[in-house]
């Protein structure tokens, strides 16, 4: 019963992973189990079809964008290994409020800025650093599809850009995105409660 030695030995670079992501050993083991459960043909990595097989994700209006976020590490990336899988999920760890502010060390993956960056890339599909009017329209269309008319979609898009776009270039940059969400409790809304 309950010996973790065998599973731990299957995961490469566990300590490095724990340090980078902040997950505990128990979490990493459970995530590894989940990774293996999703990996239908026991390939050792995940491909888009494995994600598409998750029924609740297929039901999500932006499901395919979320899947895309896993494959965004490099151009034409087609596989996700366990390390990348955990690193993406690390964005959703609740923020450590007690972390001392060290300006020399890089931001942890689950910092407010990095969470915002993750959400930003869901909008910004061509990764040019700006959410263009077209990209915003596409997201709205994904979330609302046939429930609203095209005109309504366009008017919502225009209004949103108008409010957030401070430098009047008809696109929302990351800074403008961050500013418009200044007061939103991102730490809570973009976090998943991992059990011990």
């Amino acid at each position, binding site marked *: 019963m309950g010996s973790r030695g065998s599973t731990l030995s299957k995961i490469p670079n566990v300590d490095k992973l724990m340090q980078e992501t902040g997950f505990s050993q128990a979490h990493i083991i459970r995530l590894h189990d989940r990774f293996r459960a999703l990996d239908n043909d026991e390939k050792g990595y995940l491909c888009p079809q494995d994600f598409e097989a998750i*029924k609740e994700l297929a039901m999500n209006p932006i499901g395919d964008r979320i899947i895309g976020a896993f494959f965004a590490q490099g151009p034409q990336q087609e596989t996700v290994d366990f390390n990348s899988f955990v690193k993406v999920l690390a964005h959703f760890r609740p923020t450590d409020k007690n972390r001392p502010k060290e300006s020399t060390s890089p931001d942890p993956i689950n910092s407010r800025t990095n969470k915002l960056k993750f959400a930003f890339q869901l909008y910004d599909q061509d990764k040019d650093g700006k959410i263009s009017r077209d990209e915003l329209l596409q997201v709205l269309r994904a979330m*609302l599809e046939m429930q609203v008319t095209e005109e309504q979609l366009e008017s919502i898009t225009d209004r949103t850009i108008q409010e957030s776009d401070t430098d009047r270039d008809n696109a929302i940059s990351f800074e403008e995105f961050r500013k418009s969400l200044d007061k*939103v409790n991102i730490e809570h809304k973009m976090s998943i409660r991992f*059990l011990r």
Partner: protein
Amino acid sequence: MGPFYFPFDNLLCMLLGISFTVWITLLLVFIIVPAIFGVSFGIRRLYMKTLLKIFEVSARPRISSVFINKWCLSLALGIIAKEPTSLVEEMTEIRRSGSNRDLDEFEMSDIFYFCRRGLESIVDDEVTKRFSAEELESWNLLTRSNYNFQHISTRLTVLWGLGVFIRYGFLLPLRVTLAFTGVSCLVVLTTLVGYLPSGRVKNFLSETAHLMCYRICVRALTAIITYHHSENKPKNGGICVANHTSPIDVIILASDGCYAMVGQTHGGLMGFIQRAMVRACPHIWFERSEVKDRHLVAKRLSDHVQDKSKLPILIFPEGTCINNTSVMMFKKGSFEIGCTVYPVAIKYDPRFGEAFWNSSKYGMVNYLLRMMSSWAIVCSVWYLPPMSREEGEDAVQFANRVKAAIARQGGLVDMLWDGGLKRGKVKDTFKEEQQKLYSKILVGTQEDRSRS
């Protein structure tokens, strides 16, 4: 040197002969004869109690018991705690912390809700885990359920080794022999009974033949079954519905009562058995082409049901094998016929052997071998009181009512998801539901405003 071998040879033959005779006699006396008469010596229950004792002894907690308990608890709870809030509540919360705006205009932060839900379902979702075998809390000395457990102590390894020897060296050959006996008896006896003219004698003999052969098959699997509420057993002219975990469900139910089976005609050995069975009493076998025609299926079923002399039909409305932790959506076809439905709940005890058939991983023969080399199949069968469709209830609501009753009795989770999701994709209607909900929040109120 020569003469030395002959006595040994003879001795060997004699010994083999004697042990073979003893073996066959024991088999007959302890297994086959009781099966014919439906009595039990209680050997299997004794075996089960012994096994439980052994599991307890081998799994006795040691120094790290606290740690193990916490880990087992996390297995049961899952990896994450999901917020049970709805779309509307979440959106209100997100908006409230942002600017003080009403809930009727799009905000960039709205995407957070869908994003988080999506990631939550990647980490842990309700449906995928129903299609793989249930995880055990403690090891039952079978290699196949040894995933996160590894070498703990020599004692455990020795027990495990002994277990392998007993299971594969003794139990498996015994069970395979019994299975062959059972199936061949079924074929032979039903064919013989089929030659008799229709009447009470034929029905009686056919029932006896079926019961006897199924009981032998039950012993072939070392299935220890506890039947509850036998007063609710299905009667003629009704339909018996049960939750589906494996093909063995049929054997388990049919060894306690006589049913008319429903299924597709197969070729080969299965087809041969089917043809033999249908000679003795009317089962309903469909050709592959007929299965698609729902009206034809419904008509044949209702014709059968209306004839009160025919046996109750046995149907598994989930349509596929589920891993016995939940009950998935019942297909409404059998509930449209309009006769009494006798629900039956079947719950397996996974400690002795995993009965769930993961058809995408294992073929039928592989599955049967695994069944026969487990310790035993222990299950409970509850016969629930009969139900009928009420006034103003449509087939789907009736099906859900029956499903809820079965789930409640068997201690299973009642799920709305379709078992067909094992192989098929999610219908777009589910996604549209989400979109509808969201759009109601955004646009619904906008329309009100523009109208005023």
